[in-house]
């Protein structure tokens, strides 16, 4: 083989492998990507039942119910809308009412969200980034508010319902 032919063989093989990688990426992109939705988007955009997506928001206070054999039900809210979620499994350590959560799963025809994953991954302020953004969009987020939960004695007190009239 001449130098040039060797070269062209090499380039051809590289091209084939890279094209295959590109094809894999593109086809995987179509099937495996999961979108993030806030409860308000779920309510307004009418996400089709059966579509897989991530639902993020705050766990509504007082909504957590434990049923037999590890089933749990709770509501995810962005203070605008609320979506009921069902999940079977142990909840992550950082799961708490009134705090941020991201769940992944499928919307049932009856409007409840059947989650198969409840994400345990939070940063140290206990607020998933997507949730923080979604809440900001709802105007319900104050910078530093989440941080205050991790740092007692700082920041503004939480949303205590005040009965004050001056």
């Amino acid at each position, binding site marked *: 083989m001449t130098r040039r032919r060797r070269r062209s063989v090499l380039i051809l093989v590289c091209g084939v492998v890279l094209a295959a990688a590109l094809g894999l990426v593109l086809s995987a992109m179509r099937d495996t990507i999961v979108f993030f939705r806030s409860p308000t988007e779920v309510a307004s955009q009418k996400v089709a039942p059966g579509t897989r997506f991530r639902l993020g928001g705050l766990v509504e206070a007082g909504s957590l119910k434990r049923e037999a054999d590890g089933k749990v039900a709770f509501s995810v809210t962005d203070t605008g809308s609320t979506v009921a979620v069902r999940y079977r499994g142990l909840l992550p350590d950082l799961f708490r009412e009134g705090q941020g959560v991201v769940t992944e799963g499928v919307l049932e025809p009856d409007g409840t969200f059947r989650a198969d994953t409840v994400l345990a991954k939070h940063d140290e302020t206990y607020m998933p980034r997507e949730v923080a953004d979604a809440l900001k969009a709802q105007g319900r987020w104050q910078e530093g508010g989440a941080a205050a939960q991790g740092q*007692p*004695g*700082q920041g503004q*007190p939480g949303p*205590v*319902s*005040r*009965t*004050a*009239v*001056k």
Partner: protein
Amino acid sequence: MTAIWFIFALMTGLAVLALLWPMSRRPALAAAVPEGEARIATETGFYRDQLREIDRDAARGLLAEPEAEAARAEAARRLLRASREPGRPAGAFGEPALRRRRAASAFALSTVPLVALLIYGLYGSPDLPAQPQAERLAHARAAGNDLAAAVTQIEAHLAKAPEDGRGWTVLAPVYLRLGRVEDAIKAYENSLRILGDDPGRLADYGEALVAAGDGVVSSKARDAFERALKQDSKAVKPQFYLARAAEQDGNRGEARTRYAAMAAAAPPEAPWLPMVRDSLARLDGTAPAAAPATGPAIGEEQRGMIRGMVEGLAQRLAEKGGTPEEWARLVRSFMVLGERPKAEAALAQARTALGGDAGRLAPVEEVARETGLGEAAGAKAAP
């Protein structure tokens, strides 16, 4: 803390010396080597060294003969190429090299201290000593300021035994007095969770919540007071704050009923009675000034604690003097504790200590006027 600058100077000096060292040393070494080349500092020297190394390794049997042969050939090839390359070693000698080295020395001498001091000057705090925890605790204890040390000790104890409800109960009011309101609330919550509801603790908890809300009785605080009242219907503090909550809600009728009930049931010498009467008067629109938002009744435990702190303050001010604000606080504290004679004494002391300077005395006089102490004491002092 000037010593620190000597240390900095020493470090900088050493660093610059380290940089200049190769430049000062090299000429002597160059003279010693006949070819005028420092052996390893040039490409050819490097490959010559490498060849020697290969021979040594081959002789010791560390390298197989064919490998050694190949390595030798390669190193020799490179040596050849390196020695053919023109112009490379020329820079080591002569006037330009000397000038270059002088420039480099000047660069090192000027840049290193300049950059280091500039950066440190921007971000450093040379006057702040290290404060290891152990030393601070020891120091705090030695200085007699043992409250903070005691708090830290209790905290340490609670970190080990967080289920010790009594510990939390002791700590909570101290936090409150230190102004760590959020911590106090947490401590009360812990003590309530572990030891269960108790009218006194619930009332104190509610009071802490009110303090956190700057005097506003939040729904959470109200809940605590209601629970306290359920257990002890005669408890004063919850009644008072619930009345205040009603007042804040604009529910004057209820507030009035509650205040009136308290006033009616109160023993005549109750220290909080004036405050309730003031509130009633305010609701009826007859009172001249708003009452201060402090709580009416203080628990025995707390009273002892506060008294201890106030006495400490009094002693310190008497011995070392203090700011007008501190004197004012002392006078007010004695009045809150219901110790009028001591308050008067403190006021007199303050007037002497602050030397009759009207401007500096102003905050003290202000308190005296507020607490109704001013005229009487002033009248007494006048003749």
